[in-house]
């Protein structure tokens, strides 16, 4: 357990006054403005906001794939300057490797880090099983359905055993039915194997269903508008009055965009 720069114990990832601008010929666009946040160990945090408000940019900055224009990101108290194995990412486009089997994809991280074969076989077996893909170890990615692909993406990120998992709208490409199913699945997986998760979505129902805490962002540039601690018992019911009233309240506070 380490103490980070903000002095709080057991913070896995945090950022202070992070802003991000993109410059082009037409001038500079501010995408993120002055965001400070902290994510505690095993917390399920949802970054929720309208349309193209810079959620993915924020995730890129937090994971180290991109650098902030100003402000600092800390991971376990250390400054983040580049991506690292302790910060896993599940991309919106899934970004699975089509030249590898399910096993090859899931075991990629441990293999890249030089674990012995027996170790990465064991690890990948465990996580393939966890996401419910037992029996598909030797299937190639193109043979899988959308939901199965996203399971592979989750297993691949989990299998590298990162401190924090970033998930960028992981279910946005799925059809409605599969999306509900995967929301249940991610809850089941997370309850079995607790991890710190930073989950991005623009779907209010999904946000309320999965989150310990929802960080509501404004439209471009993204600022923190409000935070909600969701303490509804799990598994949650999409149709319960408490669920619906939370959903309403957060929706009302969300910026409207076209």
């Amino acid at each position, binding site marked *: 357990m380490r103490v980070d720069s903000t002095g709080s114990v057991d913070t896995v990832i945090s950022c202070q006054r992070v802003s991000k601008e993109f410059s082009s010929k037409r001038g500079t666009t501010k995408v993120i403005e002055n965001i400070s946040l902290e994510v505690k160990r095993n917390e399920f945090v949802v970054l929720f906001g309208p349309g193209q408000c810079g959620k993915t940019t924020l995730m890129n900055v937090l*994971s180290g*794939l991109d650098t902030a224009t100003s402000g600092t990101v800390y991971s376990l108290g250390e400054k983040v300057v*580049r*991506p*690292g*194995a302790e*910060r*896993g*990412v599940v*991309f919106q*486009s899934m*970004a699975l*490797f*089509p*030249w*590898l*089997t399910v096993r090859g994809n899931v075991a*990629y*991280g441990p293999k*890249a*880090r030089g674990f012995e074969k027996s170790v990465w076989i064991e690890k990948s077996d465990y996580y393939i099983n966890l996401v419910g893909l037992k029996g598909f170890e030797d299937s*190639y990615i*193109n*043979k899988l359905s959308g939901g199965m692909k996203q399971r592979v993406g989750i297993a691949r990120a989990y299998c*590298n055993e990162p401190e924090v998992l970033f998930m960028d709208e992981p279910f946005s490409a799925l059809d409605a039915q599969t999306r509900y199913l995967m929301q249940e699945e991610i809850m089941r997986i997370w309850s079995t194997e607790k991890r710190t998760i930073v989950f991005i979505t623009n779907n209010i129902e999904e946000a309320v269903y999965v989150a310990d805490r929802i960080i509501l962002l404004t439209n471009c540039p993204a600022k923190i508008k409000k935070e909600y601690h969701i303490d509804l018992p799990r598994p949650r019911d999409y149709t319960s009055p408490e669920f619906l009233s939370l959903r309403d309240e957060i929706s009302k506070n969300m910026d409207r965009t076209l």
Partner: protein
Amino acid sequence: MNRKLFLHLLISILSVIAFVGIWHLFTAVLRVVSVNTLPDPMKVFTSFIKKFSNPNPDGATLLQHTAASLQVALTGYFYALIIGIPLGIMMAWNKYIDRFVRPLFDLLKPIPGVAWIPLMIVIFGLGIASKAAVVFFSAVVPCVLNSYTGIKQTKDVHLWVARTFGASHHQKLFTIAIPTALPHILTGVRVALGAAWVAIVAAELLGATRGLGFMIQQSRGIYRTDIIIVGMLAIGICGGILTSILTIISNFLLKGRR
């Protein structure tokens, strides 16, 4: 399914039969052209069979000529692969290597392989080396170009995934970029084989002491059109067999991707 396959086979055979039939009609039946100018199919067939054991009129049997051509072509082709593929990969992966090699490569690229024949014969004489060099120059260009294009297909998001898993620059090349490029690399390998086979025959037409091109050239001098056609058939059959072997290999290497 089987009936459909049979039908397709039948249609394919029909085209060959029709071609040979028309050829037979114009030569053996109608005698539009003299037998010395264009022999009939039966004559070519018997010459083809005889040529397996008969070294006349050019000093070697059909198999000896074929082996000579294959030996030279495959030598040049082999060097083209082991130099061209890594060169293309390195040019695509490292911009300094690209800058260094590109001016020279762009200058040599438009020169057809056969344009090297006179110079190579002057330098290396009529032996294996000159013709292998011509084959090399013809085959190396598609190897470089396709490997380069293939590596350039690498998706940024795949590289990001690798980075979040802690993969090194070296690992990104070998576990992400090269697997991405493999279909293109194999296309280059196939195109290069075609180019190599064209180059060897062209080189042998101009200067050789053995080989299918040499056999054709010798037969032209003594008006043995039947042997010219035998040589052309042997070239076609060999090229076809080599291409099929490569297709089988690349289908094996790319299994699961489609």
